[in-house]
């Protein structure tokens, strides 16, 4: 029975791929149907994923691993890379998120992209993205994962730059691809190192060999850090986070799907998947934890300084991903994946909600011009509120359980500094999301657009409603760090670390107090009408400006890397190559010419001389050989 069902595993990625191919070539002819087609492939892929995951769950806990061999991709010497798909507990969760949340975003995009002349292309790229994302999480070896990894990067490039006639979109697309590629290249070197050490890229073989002591701690650290560099790029962690805020130049459904719910979580998936090597290293785990923590706090402060609604959400995503890496760094893989699921719901919801706001206000994104939208866009406002409350950590919504689990584990494993700083990051995330909500939906309208805003059509708000249900109730999956999801993941992710520390009710109380405190404070500043927050911000300069500019990291990179790099390349191309190397060549050529004309006064061009020389030489050669022979 199981064999027959799992035989269809390949169909899950193949469906969106087929949709992409059809939309790419016939999208113009399909017109409005292209979105329906794309959504349909996603819907079927989701149903199929659900069926297969249900089948997987029905297997005995220790046997929940399905590997389907498709064909041998590369076979050189003893080195083989097969196109094998792997369905286990981790990939099961990932494919449900990707196809589930992905389906909703596809449906929403039908409404959002309505009227765009290139809608066929759009859905082709969106479908293609899902294909690559599914390959990333279903691949049974690192090269298939890398295929998906680069493929989603390609689609991200195409979709950020979808409105390519806008220079900022074209620039952001290129920046995203190149920035992530820095990490990807280090990851590629990591893959080469794995091949050198293990002779294979298959997960199962790598884990077995690692368990058998095939590599040293030092090698494990090198591999883990190289792989983690890839994760830093893809998941927009410090110091490669700079591409994500700019990526908001793409259409909003893209931001929701790629830059919030799925692609950016690939780094988390990678580290969870490869955790045996990270654990063997030890040092690498600490690096992951520190990077996550630093990113969570750093991006939280940046999010607080933004006025553009999508940029708040972008920095928020960076910050929330930092939380996930904190969890991973503490070996709390189940907590990381739980947060990944919860975040997929509430962040996709908020991005789509922001898109709905833009849709209703003629593409306005500056929160200073919003205000009072809860009256004109009630459904958007209500669902957004659920998403925001979920992220802020209001019980009993999903974010509360997810974030709490991570902080709890920090506390219970004796990492008091992580617990305190993590709580601070949680405070920030409640504060910036509160600021966003109060500026956008509360108070009075501050512009014509906000006053005359209109609610979005059902094709857009129905997905919002479904996501809101998810954001509200995803907590049921895992009420405690050792909850149902953790239990399901235990065979691959290991036991959730635990130990002495504050009791759960105490920590819950602290968390709720932090959240409510932040929300009340932001309401007072941004929506009560009692404070002129813009004037207050002016008084606090230059700090707000610094936050708004993301601590000037972009400017620093421009000064330290980009400009000198350009100068260096210019000198190489136009001085070293053109003047020195080629100059030398031409000088030799000129010398030969002078010699030739002085010696022989030949009127003919060089080449005829050389052709002649060649002919004469050959004849002479044959003659000489003939004499000898």
């Amino acid at each position, binding site marked *: 029975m199981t*064999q027959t069902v799992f035989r269809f595993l390949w169909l899950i990625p193949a469906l969106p791929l087929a949709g992409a191919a059809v939309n790419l070539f016939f999208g113009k002819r399909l017109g409005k149907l292209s979105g329906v087609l794309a959504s349909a492939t996603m819907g079927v892929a989701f149903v199929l994923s659900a069926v297969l995951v249900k089948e997987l769950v029905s297997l005995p806990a220790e046997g929940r691993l399905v590997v389907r061999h498709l064909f041998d991709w590369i076979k050189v010497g003893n080195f083989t890379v097969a196109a094998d798909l792997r369905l286990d507990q981790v990939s099961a969760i990932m494919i449900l998120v990707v196809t589930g949340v992905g389906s909703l975003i596809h449906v929403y995009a039908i409404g959002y992209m309505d009227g765009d002349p290139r809608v066929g292309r759009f859905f082709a790229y969106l479908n293609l993205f899902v294909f690559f994302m599914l390959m990333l999480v279903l691949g049974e070896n690192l090269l298939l994962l890398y295929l998906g990894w680069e493929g989603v990067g390609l689609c991200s490039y195409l979709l950020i730059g979808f409105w390519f006639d806008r220079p900022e979109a074209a620039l952001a697309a290129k920046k995203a691809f190149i920035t992530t590629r820095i990490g990807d*290249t280090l990851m590629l070197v990591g893959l080469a190192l794995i091949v050198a050490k293990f002779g294979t890229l298959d997960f199962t073989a790598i884990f077995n060999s690692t368990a058998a002591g095939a590599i040293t701690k030092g090698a494990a650290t090198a591999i883990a850090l190289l792989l983690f560099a890839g994760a830093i790029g893809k998941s927009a962690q410090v110091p490669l986070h700079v591409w994500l805020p700019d990526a908001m130049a793409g259409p909003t459904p893209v931001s929701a799907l790629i830059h919030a719910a799925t692609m950016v979580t690939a780094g988390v998936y990678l580290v969870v998947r490869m955790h045996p090597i990270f654990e063997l290293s030890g040092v690498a785990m600490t690096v992951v934890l520190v990077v996550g923590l630093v990113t969570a706090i750093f991006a939280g402060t940046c999010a607080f300084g933004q006025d553009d609604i999508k940029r708040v959400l972008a920095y928020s995503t960076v910050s929330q991903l930092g939380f996930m890496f904190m969890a991973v760094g503490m070996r709390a893989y189940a907590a990381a994946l739980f947060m990944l699921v919860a975040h997929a719901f509430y962040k996709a919801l908020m991005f789509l909600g922001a898109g709905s706001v833009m849709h209703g206000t003629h593409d306005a994104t500056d929160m200073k011009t919003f205000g009072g939208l809860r009256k004109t866009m009630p459904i958007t406002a209500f669902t957004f509120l659920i998403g925001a409350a979920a992220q802020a950590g209001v019980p009993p919504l999903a974010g509360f359980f997810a974030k709490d689990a991570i902080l709890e584990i920090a506390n219970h494993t004796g990492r008091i500094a992580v617990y305190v700083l993590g709580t601070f990051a949680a405070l920030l995330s409640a504060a910036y999301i509160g600021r966003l909500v109060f500026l956008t939906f509360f108070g009075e309208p501050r512009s014509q657009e906000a006053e005359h805003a209109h609610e979005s059509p059902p094709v857009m708000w129905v997905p919002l409603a479904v996501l809101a249900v998810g954001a509200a109730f995803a907590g049921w999956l895992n009420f405690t760090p050792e909850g149902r999801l953790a239990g399901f993941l235990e065979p691959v992710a290991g036991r959730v670390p635990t130990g002495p520390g504050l009791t759960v009710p105490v920590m819950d109380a602290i968390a709720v107090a932090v959240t409510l405190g932040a929300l009340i404070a932001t309401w007072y500043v941004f929506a009560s009408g009692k404070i002129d927050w813009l004037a207050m911000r002016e008084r606090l300069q230059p700090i707000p400006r610094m936050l708004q500019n993301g601590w000037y990291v972009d400017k620093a990179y421009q000064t330290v890397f980009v400009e000198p790099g350009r100068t260096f390349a210019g000198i190489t191309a136009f001085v070293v190559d053109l003047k020195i190397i080629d100059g030398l060549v031409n000088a030799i050529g000129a010398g030969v010419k002078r010699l030739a004309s002085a010696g022989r006064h030949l009127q003919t061009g060089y080449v005829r001389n*050389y052709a002649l020389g060649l002919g004469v030489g050959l004849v002479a050669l044959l003659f000489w050989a003939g004499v000898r022979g």
Partner: protein
Amino acid sequence: MTAHILTITTFLPLAGVIVLLGGGRNLSDQITKLIAFLTTVATFVASLVIVGRFDTAVSGFQMVEHAAWVKSIGLSYLLGIDGISLWMVLLTTFLMPLAVLASWRIEKDVRRYMLAMLILEISVVGSFVALDLLLFFIFFEALLVPMYLLIGGWGGERRVYAAVKFFLFTMAGSAFLLLAILFLYSKSGASGQATFDLRSLVSVAGGLSAGTARWLFMGFFVAFAVKVPLFPLHTWLADAHTEAPTAGSVLLAGVLLKVGAYGLIRFNLALFPEAAKYFATFVSVLAVIGIIYGAVCAIMQTDIKRLVAYSSVSHLGFVVLGIFAFTRQGMTGGVLQMVNHGLATGALFLLVGMVYDRTHTRQLGELGGLAGVTPWLAGAFLFAVFASVGLPGLNSFIGEFLVIVGTFSVSHWFGSLAAIAVILAAIYLLWSYQRLAYGPVHEEHRALPDVSVREVAILAPILGLILVFGVAPRLLTDKIQPTTNAVVARVHPAHAQDAAPVLPPAAAPAEGSAP
């Protein structure tokens, strides 16, 4: 008939040459082009027979054709093919019809142009199948003339400078090659009849002292390094590519450069394995410099053809690096990369030509917004760009990855440094694509037509193969491997088993659900 399939494939274009010469000036330009096109298609079909007959159980030469030619000097008509030259021949015969199609808008002196193209095909294919060193040298030298004529006769503004530079550079290299060949030939005379037969010369070269072998290695090496081109002998390439007509650039990048890398394997490694090992680090350093240097130079180019030319320096560095790692993965990856580069860069040059046909400029600063005006042309361009960037799923990635893996197991440094090109390629290619296709469109480009049927006929096969070989590289590597493995076993027996350590057998992943 198939017994002489190599001869047939090599000299089939001669039929076209004869028809064109016989028809004289009576043939209209259209007919001339059609004759050239049909000839190259027929040649391609003939070369498919070679693939069909190719036996992967043989690691050495097959389909060998041997006839004494000038007995007195030991010159023989000796052709043969193995897993390396097989795909070089196929790449040539595949690109030729596309190059002819891409020349459809040539109006100046069509007959001579097509004659040059057909003669070029004969000499390139001949270079790849000749196993007699003198025969090889004749083909190798002969291919200069038609390419010189193509650049000098139908090229851009500085065509004469570029053509002469191309000619002189390669001729200078050839002088060393000829000397080395003659030296070997004279040595072979010591024991009976002197010969140019590669198979006999291998044992002759084996008897030389290490010092002599190293000198001879350098003689061959310089000639081929110019062709590859290897840093610092690359400066002719940018000028030649920039000034050549589209078809000239396609064939230059697609196949002519491959003659250099092919020569390194066929002659340098076969004749002087010890010297090759001795110089391996030196060559690898040049290759790594070329990989990074070419990419850095490409970043700042404003002429798109020059940009692609410098990217070739970088990509061909990968080929040489892979070859001189002397591992199975490196060597196979290097040969694979030769094919991949021919397709990906060939496609890029074809597309640049199509852009030029419409806009009459190659300057990135004068382009922009083409994605809005000509979406299919821009889309095809982007496809070729990502092939060159090394996107997994497209062909170039597999070759680059195998080279990096194959090199890495020998030297972490070379492997890691080569990987930097992966970042740089994204920078120069995406930046140029942004300037070409994105942003606002220029006023005078608003009404440009999108791809024509002829252009689809050019692009569909080459872009199709880029995808096919990305998904199913074994179509190529299964035939390359027997030969490259044998080469590795000969040059570096220690690597013959494998580059990667074989670990205690891990529990194999079960088919279907695990127990």
